[in-house]
């Protein structure tokens, strides 16, 4: 027995999705027309219900998908702000909380090499645009450096990327999920905040670089014959994107500090370069940030700020008088920019904090507390 045979009220019809769509779109998948004509009482009810539907129109969908995407990005920003404020509270409770978590989870990481399944196979030369396109619904932000100077980008996890001219980076406003993924076209120097729980993946044309916390440079211009990766600190793992697709995990190449890897597009081959001083191309392409040392022994804070300014092409404003007698001994080589600033502020004392706005950094301080 059909449900609709028991309909006696207009309400019954109005609440029937199939009936509604028949009236609105004439899509008569369930033979409403025929059914109606079977019985004259029924026809009367149907006719009245139809009038109701015609008199109760609501506007059709007309929000452009870009508006929805913008709203989605705005929502992630809200989440990020909220999460940041809760994190601060956690830190107040226990400063070592994150560190201890990190230490435990290093071991768990090796087994969690599971991003392969997220990729659609069969395309060996997936370039930046396609990669982005695939992941578009996650609300990525794209930053392009059209200037002639490197540009600093701070990511939501505290990592920083120095993006070279003519390069672009796409990244989520906030990293959620088990991985931190960004997409690079061109060249960037990455300093990744340590978080073994969430490996950091850089998709740069044909290759995928995976790290936990470290600094390295990737150069992947689509108009150049090679893709290069040079590691400064820590350890990174590189796979070709093709390998990711074919689930071949054995071909993974591990790079240690001052090692480099060159992927030749033409032949699709990898060349590991263990002595970067002997590679002419790499020697000539070394950037300021990679030459500067961030190991400071009893150095005036003003000098440290100057080094940071040179490395990241930022401006730092700080109360010169109050900090003129402050010296620090610290090693900041392995830290992204926000982490460097945090460590300096902490070393200077409790009343010191920093604000970062694009490439403008302001240090607020009452002087050092020693």
């Amino acid at each position, binding site marked *: 027995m059909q449900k609709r045979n028991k309909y006696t009220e207009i309400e019954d019809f109005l609440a029937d999705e199939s009936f509604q769509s028949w009236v609105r779109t004439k899509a008569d998948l369930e033979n409403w027309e025929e059914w109606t004509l079977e019985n004259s009482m029924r026809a009367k009810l149907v006719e009245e219900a139809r009038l*109701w539907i*015609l008199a109760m129109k609501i506007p059709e969908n007309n929000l452009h998908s870009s508006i929805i995407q913008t709203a989605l990005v705005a929502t992630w920003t809200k989440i990020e702000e909220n999460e940041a404020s809760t994190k601060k509270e956690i830190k107040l409770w226990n400063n070592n909380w994150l560190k201890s978590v990190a230490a435990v989870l290093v071991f768990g990481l090796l087994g969690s090499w599971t991003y392969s399944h997220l990729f659609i196979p069969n395309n060996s030369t997936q370039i930046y645009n396609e990669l982005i396109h695939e992941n578009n619904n996650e609300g990525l932000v794209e930053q392009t450096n059209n200037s002639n100077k490197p540009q600093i980008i701070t990511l939501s996890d505290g990592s920083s990327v120095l993006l070279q001219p003519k390069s672009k980076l796409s990244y989520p406003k906030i990293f959620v999920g088990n991985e931190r993924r960004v997409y690079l076209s061109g060249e960037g120097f990455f300093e990744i905040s340590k978080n073994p729980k969430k490996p950091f993946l850089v998709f740069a044309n044909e290759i995928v670089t995976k790290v936990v916390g470290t600094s390295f440079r990737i150069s992947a211009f689509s108009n150049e014959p090679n893709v290069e990766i040079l590691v400064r600190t820590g350890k990174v793992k590189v796979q070709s994107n093709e390998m990711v697709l074919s689930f071949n995990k054995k071909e993974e190449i591990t790079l240690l500090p001052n090692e480099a890897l060159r992927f030749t597009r033409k032949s699709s081959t990898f060349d590991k370069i263990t002595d970067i001083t002997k590679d002419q191309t790499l020697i000539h392409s070394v950037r300021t940030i990679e030459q500067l040392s961030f190991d400071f022994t009893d150095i005036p804070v003003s000098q440290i700020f100057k080094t940071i300014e040179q490395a990241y092409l930022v401006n730092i404003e700080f109360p010169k008088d109050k900090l003129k007698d402050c010296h620090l001994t610290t090693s900041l080589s392995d830290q992204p920019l926000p982490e460097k600033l945090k460590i300096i502020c902490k070393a200077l004392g409790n009343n010191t904090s920093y604000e970062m706005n694009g490439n403008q950094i302001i240090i607020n301080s009452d002087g050092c507390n020693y």
Partner: protein
Amino acid sequence: MKIKSLNTNCADDSLLWSRLRTGDEKAFSVLFTKYYEHLVRYGNSFSNHAEKVQDCIQDVFADLWLYKHSLSDNANVKAYLLSSVRKRIARLQERDHIFSKITSTDSIEFLFDFSIEHKLIIDESTADKVNQLNILINFLPSRQKEALYLRYHQGLSVEQIADMLDVNYQSANNLLHRALLNLRKEWNANIPLLLLLSSSIL
């Protein structure tokens, strides 16, 4: 067939919902994209401040993510979202009202007006009837209108509507039933009055 597809839709929702609860950002994005516009339209029925409404909706989604671990596992996603948006806007208006001395905090008013499916009407007598009915519907008390909207456009059940409007099942049923019953009576009896109304409006 349509009913089947409606069911799979619900199944999709509860799948997305459970993935969201485990921290799947893609599920979150899909739900957002799927419901954002519905919610904007519903929210705009209460307020003329489109920006504030969108802000409220984004807040609802942000909370959804932030408190994903404490979400109940068998929620009806659509009803949950509609209800959250409604509560949020009510709270916002309540806050604004503190400053503007209007004290009715409990009721936010559903200001939406239904329109007419002109495209589907070919003959004049249908057009007249539909016109009259449309006017009558739009003259209904705002809660009745809202109940109609939730029931017949959003497909919520009477229980869900009762929950949202914070009344018991019987009252929600009455809201819906009365709306239709009274209207039909008026509609059939008071054609002259209706014509008067329609001419004074048009």
